């Protein structure tokens, strides 16, 4: 997308991402994530795998899993469906880019603005995560990614580094509610 005249806001309604440090926990809003949904067309799953493998350096991940490549992350979100994620500043027209790449092998849908993205880091995030979602976060290791409710909201939780680094995607319109939950829980455990 070329430079336009309108200025974007982050999911929390700010011009710059909100970053909160509470005790040893850092909660950072990440607006620089391009997200597209990739759904295999009927009978094209293998074609899609073949197309994506060079990009990912591996197969598209299975249920509950994410695949991290150099500048791209793929996570399983449903049967024959994945989210691909990359830096928005590097890939401003990511949906078009992927659409042109996969052609008829998959349906591609722009999802970048559907989600509020929070990167959460700290030495031990288990006490925080067990306050906010029903996952056995202690048992999650890098590459685990799953869908889970947080305060009744369908979220995606991606473990980037066991115990220490997680990315949480939640519905953008409820970014403020989610952020409130994270911050309150972080204060509670800090």
């Amino acid at each position, binding site marked *: *997308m070329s430079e336009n005249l309108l200025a*974007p806001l982050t999911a929390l309604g700010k011009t710059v991402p909100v970053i909160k440090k509470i005790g040893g926990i850092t909660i950072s809003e990440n607006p620089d994530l391009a997200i597209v949904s990739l759904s295999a067309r009927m009978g094209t799953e293998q074609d899609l795998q073949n197309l994506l493998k060079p990009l990912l350096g591996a197969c598209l991940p299975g249920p509950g899993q994410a695949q991290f490549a150099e500048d791209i992350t793929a996570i399983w979100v449903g049967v024959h469906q994945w989210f691909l994620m990359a830096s928005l500043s590097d890939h401003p027209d990511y949906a078009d880019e992927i659409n042109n790449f996969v052609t008829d092998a998959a*349906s591609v849908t722009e*999802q970048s603005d559907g989600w509020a993205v929070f990167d959460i880091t700290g030495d031990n995030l288990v006490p925080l995560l067990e306050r906010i979602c029903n996952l056995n976060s202690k048992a999650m290791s890098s590459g685990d990614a799953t869908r889970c409710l947080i305060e009744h909201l369908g979220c995606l939780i991606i473990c980037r580094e066991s115990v220490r680094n997680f990315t949480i995607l939640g519905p953008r319109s409820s970014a403020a509610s989610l952020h409130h939950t994270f911050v309150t829980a972080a204060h509670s455990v800090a």
Partner: protein
Amino acid sequence: MSQKNRLDGGQIDRNHRLSFSFDGKNYSGYAGDTLASALLANDVRLMGRSFKYHRPRGVFSAGSEEPNALVELRSGARREPNTRATVAELYDGLEAQSQNRFPSLRFDVMAINDRLSSFLSAGFYYKTFMWPAAFWEKIYEPFIRRAAGLGHLSGEEDPDDYDKGFLHCDLLVIGAGPSGLVAAQTAGRAGAEVILAEEDFTFGGRLLADTGLLTDQHANDWIAEVVGELSNLPNVRLMTRTTVFGQYDHGIFGAVERVTDHLPEPPSQKPRQILWRIYAKRTLLTAGATERPITFDNNDRPGVMLAGAMRAYANRWAVAPAKEVAIFTNNDDGHRTARDLNAKGVKIAALVDSRADAPTSPEFEVLSGAKIIDSRGRLGLKSVKVRLQDGSVKDLTCGALGIAGGWNPNVHLTCHKRGRPVWNDHISAFVPVPDSDPLLRVAGAAAGLFSTHEALQSGADKTIEALKDLDISAHLPDLPQAEGAPVNIAPFWYVKGGKGRAWLDLQNDVTVKDIKLAHQEGFKSVEHVKRYTTLGMATDQGKTANLGALAILADLEGKTIPDVGTTIFRPPYTPVSIGAFAGRSRGKNFRPYRLTPSHKWAEEQGAIFVEAGNWLRAQWFPIEGETHWRQSVDREVLAVRKSVGICDVTTLGKIDVQGADAAKFLNHVYCNGFAKLPVGKTRYGLMLREDGMAMDDGTAARLAEDHFVVTTTTANAVSVFRHMEFCRQCLWPGLDVQLISTTEAWAQFAVAGPNSRQLLQKIVDPEHDISNEAFTYMACGEITICSGLRARLFRISFSGELAYEIAVPARYGDALIRRLMDVGEEFDIVPYGTEALGVLRIEKGHAAGNELNGQSTAAMLGLGRMVSQKKDSIGRVLAGRPHLMREDDYRLVGLRPVYAEDTILSGAHLMSVGDPANAKNDQGWVTSAAYSPHIGSSIALAFLKKGENRHGEVLRIVSPLDNMDIQITVTIPHFIDPEGVRLRV
């Protein structure tokens, strides 16, 4: 103040003296005390008044089963009524008040009830407050409500924070007595993920209250050793002050952790309590047992308590309830209490044992085959009357009486999934059915294994067994040698033949006579007796009362106790504060809210917001000088019709439909045709349910041969998506269709009014021609605006005016509305909210949620011809049911008042003029109503029988609830531009 009843020893920290107050009087205690132990140490036996008769009461137990010693803890907004003094951990500055008394605990005028007890027997209010019926609501119920309850809420907002969380483990161990500690040790060493939850503030359970060695160690040293080992294991989570209060399906448990209840107030931003949902692969219940009393006349005086509690106060808290005590028992455990107290220097007036063959003691007098038949002492026990084996009567002077009627295993959690315990004759108590639940095992006293040896052994054995299920190999640890005394009990429940009142349920003032009365009046099922007499209700749930009542019922019925059966235990095991259930969900965060992309801008404009589902939508935008919402809404509506307005419609559901069979799919989902919709066009669509009733309406825009964007109503965004997924996955899995919600991803604005095109032309990039000729009514397309921002434009209208909906990536929504307002200044652009949106659509005659209420057919909406008979679609067949095709069915019509000043309200019913207003004459109802500034009067949409043939007819609309009865004229449901000319200019 001196602690005159304090003994030597105990597990209190004498270097840490604490001050506290009870009813305004200051006392001192030590760290490690509970409020109850500290009050006893200060010779305070009178701690409360009973519920119904306001009888003076003292502490009865030493744990969470306490029925009597309920107090109001803390003050101000933190005041918490009905707190059990036995589990309230003492802290410096603790304030407690007695409750249910006026003006003071020692002199309570409401104690008059005690004199009126013959009028207040079981079920008295069912009998007393029957007549006259009109008195119930205004007099009787308020009176009963005022009299009921014990303590009082502060009425202020709870100032504390609460949290919630989720835990996962291989083995959850509930209760950290000897059995639980060994279980955690066994599982911890095996590498299993273990949670050890203990309701007390320290580990050890009954070991803390008893003397006796474990091998050659004091119990405390052994506890410290085990807890030390467990706390060094990363796979073991130790949780004190945590009550597991309920068992739910599939190994899920509810627990509440009282994080800061032992502090004057929680540190800033820290929760007072945490509600945990624990997912356990296997669970071991080691919750111990609760002692039960023996009932006799006037057995409720302050100073009368359970013998095991008396022992706990002496051993753990170094407190004697009085200088001289008596014991009443039917089993050997009572002797143990007498021995321990005697060893501590407390004088034993006598041990009264109901068994004729009771063991004797060289240390104190044992009265075998004797029974206590009465007691004396108005505000505290002074003496008990004993009938000796030979029938003679003897008075024993004592300040406290310990009663040992045997122990009931704490089976409660095994019953939460409808498990029924079975009777065990050996211990005269109900025990869990062994191996009845593969997910929940029971060990120690909770399983009826009362000796310390059995507790240790069964804790380890059951853990090994449970972990074997999970393929985790565990080994028996070296168990310490412990006492293995057998249970020696001769069941004895209550002393018969008394003339006074003998109390079964101390908390609810239920006596033996009440049970007999209930039985006499036909309440024979134990569940009925419970409800009629209130036995076993309230904070203690009858933990010390239930079995005594069952024994009496069994006597009356001539049955055994197991034949009478038990009431069912339900969660919570002990009371849980509502705040803990609410957790973080309070105030504006009661539930997550959803903000539209223009929310921040709308706030700056002073918009008034309304909740639409979880969304906060701008309802109207007041400007200076407007004092009533109608002024704002009328202005917004007129401005749209005159020039242009803008409304955030992001909340409408948006579903991306792609795939080679996308058109075919939509053709099945919608009742009208979509297969031939050209690329670049949008069509209004109606979805029916399988039963033929209208489900939702919206539009589908075809962006490419294999790509549609479907919009839904705000309310049905989720349900329509779920319905479409069901269709895709289950009805037509062979179609190549992919669905995903994009509701959140796009900020979408309705731009409506005759100048809407001119406005948009100012921001749409010049390469996109949106002239009337190039971008006709119902066109859609992907465009760019503001020098390259990708956007989608739909020429659709809800208002009846020339209108568009423009969508941009959500992050640009705020900037777009600001830009549109800027460039629209020359057109006097206004933002409009949901109220104006509603008025505009009623003027145009568009159906919305009020009309699509699940009971409407396409025909009723005037859309019957949309249901294509040329193709199959969901609901088509059943929409053709004769009943739904009746010609006299309801049809959507418009209404205008005959007298323009009259106001129509929705919900009113339509009647013929002159007919009585009753259901028989009902001809339909008003679905939506508004004041139309365009028409200059109230207008409405309504469903009217045969409505399409009755335009021009004058009827009345009646709403007795609104005191409304006015005449209206039936019209077509389009108050503006019925030909649709404005849409196409």
